[in-house]
């Protein structure tokens, strides 16, 4: 069955200029592994699996598969939260993920339609929010995407106006914006473009952690890094949202760029001393507010410990 699908997929990818069947085989294995971890309720491992898919799609320069990985990573993060805090309703909540993953899988084996992927992601985001709400929230809050859109406009304008403060390594602007976005989406639901913005800012938050690491031991991110890694993406996200633009290919290239930068910086700066904080902030940057601890502080603590010993 998988062989048949693989043959089908190979043909589809040949059309999409992906000519190395080995590449496809590797990505397919990553995807299948990811799906298995979901089926086994091992959502932390699913997060790891999506990182593999993400990384391999970067090495193999497959932007479409990168989007698949980014979406699956978000799904994994949602279920990590449900598994931890709402395990009592896991079976019902998994129905939503199961449906989305089946749809993503079908899309993948048919050559990846980016727009459908985003639609699936939006549908998942809207529906899973119902399971994140507590009992009272379920009773009180009603769908109001108009309100969501107003808040998104305001918060993104605020983000744009204050983007320079990202240069300071203690700045919590990205996590702050992400927190508002998640709250609004959860309580009032959202449309496709809000789901897209959410995923961008989530990846940008991860990238931001590594930009800080890159600039260690400075307390400020240097101008070049700020422009290359942060400003360009903030401008893109804000501009496209406010202009109501939904150019899926352009969006996809930008997301790929963020992912590529974040993964490259991860290779370079994910030193053992920051391992303890990185995975947590990667998993749920907004839900669990992880204070960004610069390496200098960690270094200072290590030195102190050494002296004490």
């Amino acid at each position, binding site marked *: 069955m998988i062989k048949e699908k693989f043959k089908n997929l190979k043909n589809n990818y040949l059309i999409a200029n992906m000519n190395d069947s080995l590449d496809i085989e590797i990505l397919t294995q990553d995807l299948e592994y990811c799906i298995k971890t979901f089926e086994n309720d091992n959502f932390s491992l699913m997060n790891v699996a999506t990182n593999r898919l993400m990384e391999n799609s970067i090495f193999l320069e497959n932007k479409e598969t990168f989007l698949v990985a980014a979406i699956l990573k978000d799904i994994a993060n949602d279920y990590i939260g449900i598994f931890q805090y709402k395990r009592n309703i*896991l079976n*019902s909540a998994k129905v939503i993920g199961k449906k989305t993953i089946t749809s993503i899988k079908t899309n993948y084996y048919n050559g990846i339609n980016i727009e459908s992927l985003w639609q699936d992601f939006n549908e998942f985001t809207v529906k899973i929010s119902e399971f994140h709400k507590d*009992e009272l929230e379920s009773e009180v809050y009603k769908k109001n995407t108009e309100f969501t859109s107003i808040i998104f406009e305001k918060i993104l304008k605020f983000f744009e106006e204050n983007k320079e403060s990202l240069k300071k390594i203690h700045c919590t602007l990205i996590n702050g914006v992400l927190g508002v976005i998640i709250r609004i989406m959860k309580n009032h639901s959202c449309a496709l473009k809000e789901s897209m913005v959410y995923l961008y800012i989530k990846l940008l938050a991860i990238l931001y952690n590594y930009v800080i690491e890159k600039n260690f031991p400075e307390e400020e991110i240097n101008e070049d890094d700020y422009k290359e890694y942060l400003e360009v993406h903030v401008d893109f996200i804000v501009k496209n949202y406010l202009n109501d633009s939904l150019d899926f290919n352009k969006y996809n290239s930008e997301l790929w760029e963020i992912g590529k930068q974040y993964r490259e910086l991860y290779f370079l700066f994910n030193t053992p001393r920051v391992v303890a904080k990185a995975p947590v902030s990667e998993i749920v940057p907004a839900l669990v507010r992880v204070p960004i601890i610069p390496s200098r502080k960690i270094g200072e603590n290590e030195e102190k410990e050494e002296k004490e010993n």
Partner: protein
Amino acid sequence: MESIQSNVEASQDITRIYNNLKYNNTSDVNLTFSTDASGIIDLPERGTEIHKIDRINVHRNEIIHRSLKSHKKIEFFRDSSSIETHHASYLKFPNKEIKVDSLPAEITPFKLDLQFSKKVENLIIHDSIFGRFISEIERNLNEFIKHEHMKLENKIFFEEDWEIPDYEKLILSLNFKGIPFKREMLLWKMINTMVYERIKHIILYSSEEKVRRIKELKKKFFIKLEM
């Protein structure tokens, strides 16, 4: 020789040991309970001599289960339906003396594997009120198995009523394994009460629009015991 039941998870606490003994013939033997590194308590067979497993020096501070005190003697006295627990967790039951070896016991609660039919899955996806209704049932079943330390198989599906074909029932089917019929009935009644109380609660605190839909679902909803 009748075996009580092997490998009862330590996490399931003393209540389950009590239940195990309560539903089996009791005799005046001393039983020693011990755990292995995985925190599993072996319930010994009657009349067999149990060798204590050496304590392994692992994560002593991670002992979650307060009832598993080091070699505490737990006495069981006859005809006591209540379980007294204070600090050392003493259980009262027939002339039995149980020694519990102390080892870290990771709490591994029973996992509820609730199966849904395709139609139920589709409705969960497309109808948020239905989704809420089902997740509340799931929440209740989880609370129940956590409280009663029960393993049960269950599924939710729609079933046509053979007398009224237009009437489609939403069925929660329960299957308790290896439990006497009387007890099965008792558990079924408990689940019925819990779930319907919960539905009443949702009705009480929902908006008008939701109430109508939940009442409809309540009318269709039945809890069936698989024989």
